[in-house]
């Protein structure tokens, strides 16, 4: 057991992983980790612009899990919900990256695929236009977000957003997305 953990820890470090979390995710966890991430980057004298970009993508991906993960626990009495997912922040070739993963409903697959594929083809100007257009578009009542998260991430990232959706059993798919800053 002890050796496994030690091995796991070193494996993460060797891969340049700064932070990894898998399990229940909440807004308060986001706030805490977000603060620590900012502190770490500040101490390492990362430029303010990069810190802002990393933090921004971190928030969008964490809230994406909070709002859209299909694996969640809801307490009936309180308006409380906890969603499950995985999130990794790392650095490779001098670029920060963030990866998140969570279950989605199989029937959300097509819309997500279409949206992200579309965003991947856009350049900076097109992304800006799309962002502004979506910002004024009427909100879908069932959605907790504004549908702007992925566009925002694409605008902050230095490379097109990568993603993968894998079909699982029993009506779920696993969705992974990676943004490089």
């Amino acid at each position: 057991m002890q050796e496994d953990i030690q091995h796991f820890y070193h494996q993460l470090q060797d891969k340049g992983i700064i932070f990894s979390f898998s399990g229940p995710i909440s807004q308060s966890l986001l706030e805490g980790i977000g603060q620590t991430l900012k502190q770490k980057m500040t101490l390492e004298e990362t430029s303010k612009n990069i810190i802002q970009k990393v933090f921004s993508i971190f928030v969008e991906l964490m809230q994406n899990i909070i709002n859209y993960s299909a694996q969640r626990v809801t307490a009936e009495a309180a308006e409380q919900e906890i969603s499950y997912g995985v999130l990794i922040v790392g650095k490779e070739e001098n670029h920060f990256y963030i990866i998140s993963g969570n279950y989605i409903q199989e029937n959300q697959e097509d819309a997500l695929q279409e949206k992200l594929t579309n965003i991947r083809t856009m350049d900076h100007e097109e992304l800006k236009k799309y962002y502004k257009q979506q910002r004024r578009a009427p909100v879908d009542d069932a959605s907790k977000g504004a549908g702007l998260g992925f566009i925002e991430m694409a605008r902050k990232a230095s490379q097109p957003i990568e993603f993968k959706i894998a079909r699982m059993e029993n009506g779920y798919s696993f969705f992974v997305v990676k943004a490089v800053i």
Partner: protein
Amino acid sequence: MDIFAREQSKSTPWIHFDPNQNHLQISGESYPENSAKFYAPMLEWLEGYLNNMQASKIQVDVKLIYFNSSSSKLFMNFFDMLEEAAQNGIYVEVNWIYHEDNDTALECGEEFQEDLDNVCFKLIQIE
């Protein structure tokens, strides 16, 4: 009409809307879990305020270090309501205050500015 006020939290800004001074102020960071829910009371207050508007001028000071994408949508709603008031002849001055080394805040301000025609939207750099 009462003052609308919210204390600052880690993920929500300080808000102070004073109907007597016609001075609306927002300052801090904004990335609440549910932006629509958080900002609903503020927008409701604003609607009531604008519908009963007595004065001819409103001053709005916005100093946001960071906001997430769903907050951005709510701020657009907020500015669109002010834009409508401006179209109806009220002089609306928005001061978008940003720190000199916060390029993101400047860009965000510029993007709101581009989308508003009647509001007098100023970008103000501070040190």
